[in-house]
C-alpha cells in the first residue's frame, strides 16, 4: 500500500509542527513521510483487536504534593536566558491586535 501525502496535508502538518518549509523541504518531507508511513503500515499485519494501548510499561499514578515553593525565586537566572526581555518580562511580538 503506497501512501500519498498531498500538498494540503503537508501544509497542515507544517502548521501543527510550527515549521516553515521551503518548496524543496516540502517535497522532501512528502517523500520521507510517504516512505515512513508505508513502512509503519506493516503494523496492520498485526491483529491488535482487544489489545489495550500501552502508554507506560509500569502503572503510572499521579504524584501529588503540597504546592509549596522549594527552589526560591529564580527570576534573574531565568530571564538571563531570554532572547529578548523588557524589564522583568519576556518580550514577544504583539499578539493581540
Amino acid at each position: 500500500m503506497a501512501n500519498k501525502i498531498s500538498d494540503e496535508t503537508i501544509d497542515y502538518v507544517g502548521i501543527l509542527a510550527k515549521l516553515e518549509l521551503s518548496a524543496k523541504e516540502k517535497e522532501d518531507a512528502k517523500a520521507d513521510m510517504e516512505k515512513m508511513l508505508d513502512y509503519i503500515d506493516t503494523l496492520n499485519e498485526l491483529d491488535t483487536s482487544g489489545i489495550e494501548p500501552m502508554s507506560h510499561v509500569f502503572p503510572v499514578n499521579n504524584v501529588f504534593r503540597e504546592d509549596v515553593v522549594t527552589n526560591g525565586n529564580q527570576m534573574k537566572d531565568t530571564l538571563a536566558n531570554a532572547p529578548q526581555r523588557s524589564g522583568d518580562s519576556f518580550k514577544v511580538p504583539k499578539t493581540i491586535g
Partner: protein
Amino acid sequence: MDILGLSAVELGKKIKAKEISVTDATKAVLAQTASVEPHINSYVTIDEKGALAQAEEIQKKIDNGELVGPLAGVPAAVKDNMCIKGQLTTCGSKILSNFKPTYTAEAVLNLQKAGAVLIGKTNMDEFAMGSTTETSYYGPTMNPHNMRHVPGGSSGGSCAAVAAQECYYSLGSDTGGSIRQPSSFCGVVGMKPTYGTVSRYGLVAYGSSLDQIGPVTKNVTDCAAVLQTIASYDSKDSTSVKREDYDFMRALTEDVRGLRIGIPKDYFTEGLDREVADAIYAAAKVLKEQGAVVETFDLSLVQYAIPAYYVIASAEASSNLERFDGVKYGYRTAEYEGLHNMYKKTRSEGFGAEVKRRIMLGSFVLSSGYYDAYYLKALRTKALIKAAFDKAFESYDIILAPAAPTTAPELGKSLSDPMKMYLSDIYTVSVNLAGLPGISIPVGRAKNGLPIGMQMIGNSFQEKTLLRAAYTYECATGGCYEQPAHIPAADLAGKEA
C-alpha cells in the same frame, strides 16, 4: 604511571590511597582532550577552569573524609542533553546554542554529590535523534578506533570520550539504543537501566516514555559503580520508581552457573553481519563454559518494533519539542512579523533536518483522523511486544543479542537514507518500548579493526543479573576495554584528522 589507562574505580582507589591527586588526574584528562579533540570532537563544551576548581574542592573533601565513594575525584563527562546549572546545554542543536540552565539534572547532581569532576558536555545527535552523532549542529564525532567511521549515536560523544580516554566514564541517554549502540561501536560498556531507575529530571526530553539515562564506562565494575551513583528515587520525575535495592556493585561476582540465557533466532537472520554474529556466538560459548544454560528461541514480533518505535518516539518528540519557540530561552530568529511567524522562523532555522522530519511525522500521527490508525496502533503493538518479552522471561534470565547489525559505518554514509539508518536500531528499540534494562559489552573486533558489542537484555529491575553475567564474561576473557590503536594522542599530534 599510565593514569589515563586506569578504570574509574581503579583511579578512585589510587586517589583514596593518595597515589594520585584529583588535580593530577584532571590535568591528565584535560591534556588528553587538548590533543585528541581536534580529531575526535567528543565534546561540545570543555570546562577546563571549572574542572580544575572542582578538582581542588573535591580533593579537600576526600582528605577530610567527607567523600568516600568509589568515584570520588574521578573525572567524568555528561551528554549535552542533561542540564548543569549555568553551563551551556545545547542538545547538539542550534536552537539551544546559548542555553544555560538554571538547575542541574538529578542524575548529574548525584554524580556531583559522589565527587565527580565534570570535565564537560559531550556531543550528540541533535536532540538525541540519530544513530551516528552526525546530526549534531556542532559537527560529527569520530570513532576513536578509526576516525573515518562514526562512533554511533546518539550518545556518540559520551562513548567516544570514554574510548579515547578523554574522561573515565560518562553519562549517556538511551531512547531507542542511544547508549548501547554507540558503546558497541566504540568498544566500551554501556547500560540502559530499567525505565524509572534514573531520574529524568533535567534531561531534555525526546521520547519521555522511552528515555533513560545510563552509564558509559571502560568495564563492568565501573558500570555498576556509576549506576549505583546515579540511580535514585526522585519525586521531581513522576515516572521515577522507588527500588528496594541500589547496591549494584554487589552483583559483581563471577558466577553464571545455571543462568538461563536465550538467543532469539529471529535476531540472527539476514541483515546481521556475519562477523558480528560469530563474535556473539563465541561470547555465548564463553558464558556456557562458565556454567550458563544457553538456548535459542523465537522471540516473535521483531520486525514490528521499529515502526512502533518511530511512531511513539516521533509523537512524543513533536509534543516535547513544542517548547522551543524562541520566547523563554535559546535561539530566536532575527527578523519576523508577529508571534506565529516568529515561532515558525525560529524553529525552522533552529532545528536540523532529522529533528524536523521527526516533529513532522509525530505531528501527523497525532493529528485527528490519524491518531487511532497510527498512534494507538503503535501503543497496542507496544503492549504485544512487552507481552512477548514477558513470555521469554518465563524461560530465560537473560536474552542475548547483537547491539547493532554491523560495526560502525563510515562517516557520511548514513544520513542520505534515513530509513536504512532507522533499521539499524532493530536490536535495541524493543528494549525501550518494553522498559527493560540492557547492557552492551565489547566482545571482539571485526577484521576492519572496529569493535563489536554484545547486548544482554534483562527482565525489569534485573540489572544485577546483567551485571553479574557481564562481569563473569569480562573475567573469563581478561577484560573488555582496549585502548584504540591510534590513541594515545602523542601519535596524533600535528596530524590532520
